[in-house]
């Protein structure tokens, strides 16, 4: 079983729709949860970062973590064509002897149609 499972999509929505992107993870020891956005031919950029269960909101983006079910989500409200990108969920386990260990989902390709 992979450490992080993510539906690869592709996902296509009309402009203004609410988008829900989801991941599950296998190890309850993971402590930190991130969402990255990657535009075509660009490097991943950090969107959201949280370490506790619950919701974290930043503008049109809401990251949700449910540690009891090992489930993480990213919601995009009022989606825009500029949101068209690949979204990567990433989990992190920090250990004193090996430092940060990041595990990546496969990414979900999102297209927002004008």
């Amino acid at each position, binding site marked *: 079983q992979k450490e992080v499972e993510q539906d690869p999509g592709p996902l296509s929505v009309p402009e203004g729709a609410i988008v829900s992107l989801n991941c599950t993870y296998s190890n309850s020891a993971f402590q*930190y949860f991130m969402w990255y956005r990657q535009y075509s031919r660009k*490097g*991943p950029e*950090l969107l959201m970062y949280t370490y506790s269960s619950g919701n974290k909101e930043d503008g049109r983006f809401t990251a949700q973590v449910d540690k009891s079910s090992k489930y993480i989500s990213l919601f995009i409200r009022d989606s825009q064509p500029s949101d068209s990108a690949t979204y*990567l969920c990433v989990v992190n386990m*920090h250990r004193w002897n090996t*430092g*940060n260990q*990041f595990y990546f989902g496969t990414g979900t390709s999102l297209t927002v149609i004008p």
Partner: protein
Amino acid sequence: DTAVSQTPKYLVTQMGNDKSIKCEQNLGHDTMYWYKQDSKKFLKIMFSYNNKELIINETVPNRFSPKSPDKAHLNLHINSLELGDSAVYFCASSQEGPDTQYFGPGTRLTVL
């Protein structure tokens, strides 16, 4: 200001050649990483360096060797390039403590 930079952006070369990719970060981070992103867009960790020490060395061929002259730089040397090495290579950095990663723009390597 660019936080994590890589050079070159594009690299086209013949099989069997030796090439290097350079990475620099100006964030003051302690750990740097190299990732390979294949055609299916999956990011696979190759190496990470913390204070000039190799922490993780995943099962990559020994043709790949990371070299860190100082905390702000982590270069990737590739010997005897093969067709399967064609991919996008990303450099990243993070603090030593629990942290997120910051990625460079990537180097698109094409081996002919």
